[in-house]
């Protein structure tokens, strides 16, 4: 049976994202981020976004470009470079609000949204300043004999999820050929509209020639659109297709040093279409 055709363009994805929306971004740190979609978002007029992410350079870029009102995060890091310079600058200027969460609470918030329950209980947060920094975070008392008091981690409901996979088919099934799928499937399941970029769109019967069944991490119930963006996670890593571009990442970090450095970086890499970007970084 032919699978549905859910192929879209980068512009279609960006057009579905409007001011004030909550956008979840897949990957982890500077790894397998949907950077082609993020770059398109940077070129769009959209603003006041709430970004939900195990954060990497996409958070810094979106903050620097003035797209972000709030970041819901447990870390923002470039992995080989611990701290994200543009995110730091935005925070230290008081330009973005944050929701400070533990990594595991973040997982539970996505899981609650995916399961359509209002919260999931956890011990995580108790004793730490997570409670002080999130005054709306409530606790619940176990209704059973133990009576334990737990944190009620609220669902992180997303308007849109953006993820990047190694391979996909036109129906929106996605295959992760790397060793860690991160939380991309949960991001999709937590969102109302789900878009997946892939390195390459293949015929459905190719999947099992490329990897085991468990590598087919995203099924098409989880996606609304798929777009082929070769080298689309650059400069984050997308192993086994390519490693992180460490030299480019250093250039990105240097762009946070001054307004002139940023202007030059933006003119060369960001105020251009995706194919021009790819030609510039080859």
């Amino acid at each position, binding site marked *: 049976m032919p699978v549905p055709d859910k192929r879209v363009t980068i512009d279609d994805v960006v057009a579905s994202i409007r001011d004030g929306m909550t956008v979840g971004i897949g990957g982890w740190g500077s790894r397998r981020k949907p950077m082609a979609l993020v770059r398109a978002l940077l070129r769009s007029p959209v603003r006041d976004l709430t970004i939900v992410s195990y954060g990497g350079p996409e958070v810094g870029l979106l903050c620097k470009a003035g797209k972000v009102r709030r970041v819901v*995060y447990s870390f923002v890091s470039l992995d080989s470079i611990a701290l994200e310079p543009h995110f*730091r600058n935005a925070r230290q*200027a008081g330009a973005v609000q944050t929701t*400070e969460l533990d990594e595991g609470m973040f997982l539970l918030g996505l899981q609650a949204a995916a399961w359509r329950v209002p919260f999931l209980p956890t011990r*995580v947060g*108790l004793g730490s300043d997570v409670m002080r920094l999130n005054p709306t975070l409530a606790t619940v008392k176990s209704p059973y004999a133990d009576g334990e008091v737990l944190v009620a981690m609220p669902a992180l409901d997303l308007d849109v999820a953006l993820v990047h996979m190694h391979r996909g088919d036109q129906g929106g099934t996605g295959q992760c050929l790397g*060793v860690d799928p991160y939380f991309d499937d949960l991001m999709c399941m937590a969102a109302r509209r789900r878009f997946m970029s892939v390195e390459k769109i293949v015929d459905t019967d190719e999947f099992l020639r490329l990897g085991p069944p468990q590598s087919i991490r995203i099924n098409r119930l989880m996606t609304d659109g798929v777009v082929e963006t070769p080298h689309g996670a650059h400069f984050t890593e997308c192993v086994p297709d390519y490693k992180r571009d460490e030299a480019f990442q250093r250039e990105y970090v240097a762009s946070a040093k001054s307004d002139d450095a940023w202007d030059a970086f933006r003119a060369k890499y960001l105020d251009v279409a995706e194919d021009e970007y790819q030609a510039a970084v080859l």
Partner: protein
Amino acid sequence: MSTVRGGPPTRAEVCAVALAECFRGDGELLANPIGTLPTIGGRLAKATFEPALVMTDGEALLVENILPVGVDAPEKVVAGYNPYRTMFDVVWSGRRHIIMGGSQLDAYGNQNFAFIGPPEKPTTQLLGMRGAPGNTIHNKTSYWISNHSTRVMVPEVSVVCGVGNDRAANLPPEIARSHHLVRVVTNLCVCDFDTPERRMRLRSVHPGVSVADVVAATGFELAIPADVPESRLPTDDELRWIREVIDPLGLGEEEVRNP
């Protein structure tokens, strides 16, 4: 593999042994050291006196052989699949001992690497909460401080990410039971919390460091026993493991310079 280093033990190697010692007696726990010297220490413990430790390759695989740090694509004896999603199952099960870093640490072991200053406009934005709130109330936790100074060892942290002993004492007993700060290893010394009020105590000073050096570099009052021993030196077998197998590139020496 690489040039074998000779000479007497370096400060970095003393730190590696002290970090390995954090895991002594752990048996079958996931030893999860974060950072270069903690990783060297963890692998050293598994290679020598704690062979039952379960360890990762630094990413999503559990491996049974002793891997070198900083070497691309070493041969791995894979004995488990542990992506980030699965790591939380391990964390919340309690079967783990983590060594984390910290930008600020206080006398009770409250740790911060999120940000410094007011939450709406920090003077210094750091990493974020990471997994510290959950790690510290579910797992054995030790800390590695590579730059022991009054900027790091502070009277009060800006944000409590990792939960310290004073706060844990106020948690319900079923949660406090799983909270266990084991050691603080720094480039100068080893500390523990073996005092009646569970405050930080100087356990040993590294060779070449005086108690006065540690006191001067610490922004709170450390408990100091009458007799503070020197941190133990690596054995010949440990030196061989570090120099020939675990850290053939000498990355530990870059993290802590030999004085």
